[in-house]
């Protein structure tokens, strides 16, 4: 990408409407049947053939505790109440002043053909363990929510980098131009800490940033015309807009850029039908609603989001991110006070909906082409805080993937006997990202964006694809 101005670069990657003579010549020669075809989000070929076409990222904001969910630790229970040995070995532990070891009160049970142990917090998902690849050796760099969230979303603990969804939108475009490529569904209790930088496109154009979809009211910001403006009037407005352009459109290469602007209003007009339709669950059968737990107050909210996620990827959206947990304190997974109480609530409200999503995708034949990722920004300590709670811990925690070409029913990596740090088959967030891109048909080394003198990558200068997962 050496020696190119940003505008030219946008053109080369198909990532923007540019003012170059080439674009104009192409459009004059009928190369673009309509201007929307040069959309920054036009579908693009992956680097190599891949099963997964879209991705649903289930973000458990606040940091779920691995030792109470996916990673049983009998040794931890045995030493309950005692200080953690080798406390001095990790400066982080010294800083955070941990309490004594806190055994898990959860009962673990073997599920499925694989016989993988899952705790009683996930009785429904446990039954689907043969579809799931548990990554017990995940680790990250930050113990703080802000930078931890940024890293899980963008790869960097520093602000200003494009998020995973933006990289996918940039690399693959999207299949449905009437919907955003990258949709974010927040928890009803609020956004995550740091807010929009978590779905920002960083140094890339705004076209690649995540779009917040609301599950009540207008799904997209300013989707509906203001009160008193009918759809017919809006149609009229767009016709006049196009007419004024025709009457005085300049003749130069910028004409394609200007045509694209007119096309963007038409796209907006179509979004007004497409977006509400995508989030309208009224046509879903009673059985489907039940499958997602929408009939139950406890699981209704997250269930609806999971169902909307399925509807979005069915309609060609490339990347959907769902947040479980919002705001602060026990409104999310940040169980400093009482891990049982906190996790009973959050697991309880997501267990059935996520299982429903897996089942539904499977029965529709979509699971193979949809990658499901489950992760928080970090895990929690095996030591106690406020007697019954746990602190943040990035050193070792569990994430999982399913569908989209992932080999389920397996465990990758392991934490130490207490469940504190990853010790075997370690998977850093960069590796997770490299693997997600790989499953979507992209080589993380090749997916680059030239910025500030460097070809930037989601994985910075790191990242290894987890071969065992494939």
């Amino acid at each position, binding site marked *: *990408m050496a020696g190119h101005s940003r505008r030219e670069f946008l053109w080369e990657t198909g990532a923007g409407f540019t003012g170059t003579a080439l674009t104009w010549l192409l459009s004059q020669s009928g190369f673009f049947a309509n201007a929307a075809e040069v959309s920054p989000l036009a579908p693009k070929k992956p680097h190599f053939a891949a099963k997964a076409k879209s991705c649903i990222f289930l973000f458990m904001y606040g940091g779920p505790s691995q030792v109470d969910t996916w990673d049983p630790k009998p040794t931890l229970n045995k030493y309950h109440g005692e200080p953690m040995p080798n406390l001095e070995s990790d400066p982080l532990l010294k800083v955070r002043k941990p309490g004594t070891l806190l055994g898990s009160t959860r009962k673990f049970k073997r599920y499925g053909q694989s016989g993988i142990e899952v705790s009683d917090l996930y009785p429904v998902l446990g039954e689907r363990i043969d579809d799931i690849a548990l990554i017990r050796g995940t680790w990250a760099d930050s113990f703080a929510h802000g930078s931890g969230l940024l890293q899980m979303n963008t790869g960097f603990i520093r602000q200003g980098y494009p998020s995973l969804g933006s990289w996918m939108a940039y690399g693959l475009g999207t299949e449905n131009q009437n919907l955003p490529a990258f949709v974010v569904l927040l928890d009803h209790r609020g956004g995550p800490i740091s807010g929009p930088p978590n779905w920002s496109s960083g140094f890339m154009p705004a076209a690649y940033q995540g779009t917040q979809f609301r599950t009540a009211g207008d799904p997209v910001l300013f989707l509906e015309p203001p009160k008193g403006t009918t759809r017919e009037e*809006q149609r009229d407005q767009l016709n006049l807009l196009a007419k004024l352009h025709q009457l005085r459109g300049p003749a130069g290469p910028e004409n394609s850029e200007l045509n694209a602007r007119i096309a963007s209003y038409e796209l907006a007009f179509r979004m007004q039908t497409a977006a509400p339709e995508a989030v309208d669950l009224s046509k879903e059968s009673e059985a489907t609603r039940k499958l997602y737990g929408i009939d139950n107050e406890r699981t209704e909210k997250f269930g609806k989001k999971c169902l909307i996620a399925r509807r979005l990827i069915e309609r060609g959206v490339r990347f959907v991110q769902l947040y479980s947990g919002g705001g602060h304190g026990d409104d999310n997974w940040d169980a400093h006070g009482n891990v049982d109480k906190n996790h009973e609530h959050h697991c309880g409200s997501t267990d059935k909906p996520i299982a429903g999503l897996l089942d539904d995708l499977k029965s529709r034949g979509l699971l193979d082409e949809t990658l499901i990722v489950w992760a928080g920004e970090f895990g929690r300590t095996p030591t106690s805080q406020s007697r019954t709670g746990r602190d943040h811990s990035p050193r070792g925690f569990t994430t999982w993937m399913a569908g989209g070409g992932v080999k389920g029913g397996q465990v990758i990596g392991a934490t130490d006997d207490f469940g504190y740090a990853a010790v075997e088959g370690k998977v850093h967030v960069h590796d997770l990202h490299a693997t997600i891109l790989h499953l979507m048909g992209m080589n993380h080394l090749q997916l680059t964006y030239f910025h500030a003198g460097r070809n930037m990558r989601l994985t910075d200068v790191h990242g290894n694809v987890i071969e065992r997962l494939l």
Partner: protein
Amino acid sequence: MKFLLFALAASAADFTTHVQPILEKHCTSCHGATVQMGGLDLRTPEAIRKGGSKGAALVAGAVGKSLVYARIADQTMPPGAKKVPSSEAAVIRQWIEAGATGEGKASQAAPKHWAFVAPRRNQPPRVRNAGWVRTPVDAFLLARMEASGIRPVREASKETLLRRVYLDLIGLPPSLEEQRAFAADPSPQAYDRVVEALLNRPEYGERWARHWLDLVRYAESNGYERDGAKPHAWRYRDWVIDAFNRDKPYDRFVTEQLAGDEVEGSNAETQIATTFLRLGTWDDEPAEPMLDRYDQLDDVLGVTSAALLGVTLRCARCHDHKFEPFTQKDYYRTLAVFQPLKRPQDDRKDLDRLVGTEAELAAYNKAKEKADGEVAERKQKIDRIRRDVMKRLFSAESKARRTQGLTWLDHAETVLAFATEAGRRTKEQKALVEKFNSQLDTAIEEEGTTDERSQMALLKQEVAQIDAARPKEPPRAYIWFEEGASPVATRLLVRGDPSRPGEEVEPGVPAVLGGLPEVKTTARSSGRRLALARWMTAAENPLTARVMVNRVWQWHFGEGIVPSENDFGVNGQRPANQELLDWLAVEFRESGWSMKQLHRLMVKSSAYRLSADWDESNAKKDAGGVLSWRWKPRRLEAEVVRDMTLAVSGRLNGQQSGPSIFPALPRAVLEGQSVPGSGWNTSNDEQSARRSVYIFAKRSLAVPELELLDAPDTTSSCEQRTVSTTGPQALTFLNGDFTNAQARHLAGRIGDKPASEQVRQVFRLALAREASDSEVAAGVEYLSRRPLESFALVLLNANEYFYLN
């Protein structure tokens, strides 16, 4: 090259004649006289044979073992997109196969990259059509056109030109009055007079400061989890606006931002300028404090090298630069310049500091100390009297009085709380005291003797007098500070890892660009940044002036003469017209670094006044579209669109300077925050209608009509806005609260008149021109079915409206 190959077939390749020119073209900027990356020097056959860290690079007769050829052939070298053409690689191959003979002289002056050699004064070229030349800029442009057989298109209409120069120079459209006045002025000087008037308007600074704020990634919050506000960062924004308006010489402008605390006569103004160094993101709870410290320094070094020098030095943090002749050592030498800076903070709390001259600050501190002492003395006396009274109040004797309504004293805990010294009270006691304090004041007043009461009254009066006579606090500013003359040593970090310190380095600059002048350390600061500023603004600096004139060109014409505006390095783009760039750079420097003089040279040129007409035959002769024979329309920046809309609707509040504003945000936008609305103190309608440069720049929250129109990301230097066109953008301007409200105001402003007149008036206000007959017809037809505000909304969304035409 075909000819050369033909010749080679007959005789073996010679190093000096055939091979050296190829290596000098592609390789020696990194493997030559100034820099030898990987220890490799490619200037002589002997040096090539010796090789570098990967071993010998040349084995005579053995192409496969000769890395100098292998790396070129497999295209790993040179890095970046520009590879050695296969015809040239073949020359090297033949030379090696034939025995790699020749000695070659190591030219000390291997041709340096053009941008690393200082520009020299040159003369504007002669042109045939001398009448077209209005400023020397035109001569440089026209000479190129004439050489290519191109004739510039005609001049833009007066209407177009007026709107163009208004939006470009002040970011606001001409008023109806100004449109009429210009149309009615037939004088050839009419346009130049408009330019002068605009350059003298305060709105000029507001418009042009925004360009600069993009470059320095200006924001008023820290980002990350708490996204805390940067106290008083807005003073820097006002400083930039003021600097543009007063035409502060650019060398001084740079110097104050880098070293306003170290310059002679350092004062509040120059110190506020150094906010530049502290505008980056800040994680108040870093995962790794040492790494975070270097991240912060890297951020400062990154913005300084990109914005002021147009180089990508930041890429050399972990290893030698892969594309440029910058070593890792160069990086850490430059980092050492900023190493002494300290962040005023109190744990997670970000602090500002008082600014002013040394004398001002000393006088203030002295006076404050004195007043504080005097006040404290009197307060102690008051406290003593109060305690005496309280003792009586809480004693058994006053029980009778308690029955008269002071029931609160019945609670032993309250009594105990009051009886306890303020500093020793528990949290609960503090709450109790707070709750009952006003009642207590009344009770003390009643219980006290006449003498006690008059004593207290007198003391209070004295305190009030002392407070009233206190000197006004100097301004506060968001800056770093240096503590003294002996900062910690800077070490090169192996792989950029703070836990792996390597050799110690002295403060400096990249070797290929020269060296720092003498660093004059004072008792208060290391003097390093002032030395850096002096080096940057010296006549022999090859980059500073070029980089800035290129930016001013870009901001006027849409694209820089060097289109990679933040990258003048080997990997950047070549200037489209280096003679012009260099002439401007020298002129800029020699005319006292005046920005306004640069504007005049560009804006008063014939090239700036061209129409956007298309010319097929010109286009064929100018494949790259770089010869400036027409005006290239471009989309306006988000802030200009918003400000223009407020001006068009008649609602613009022109209030200047001061703390930032918070226009109302839709609920849906606030919902993305973990605490919706936190850090956003919504302003009233009148304040919200001020110019966009005054909107609080919050890193985690954005105004949709700015964000969706590609306002810059504030985490790194933004030299060129992206132009993206999306559905959500259209929704925001068509359905959003802002544009709809302004459309209503615009319709209200036009009022009741015949439809054709309404259409004409909307065109004049929004597009600064008369509507054509067919436009009037289309408008009248529309108004027969829809209200005026609906028509106004369409105009505020029109393509022409969003573009600088």
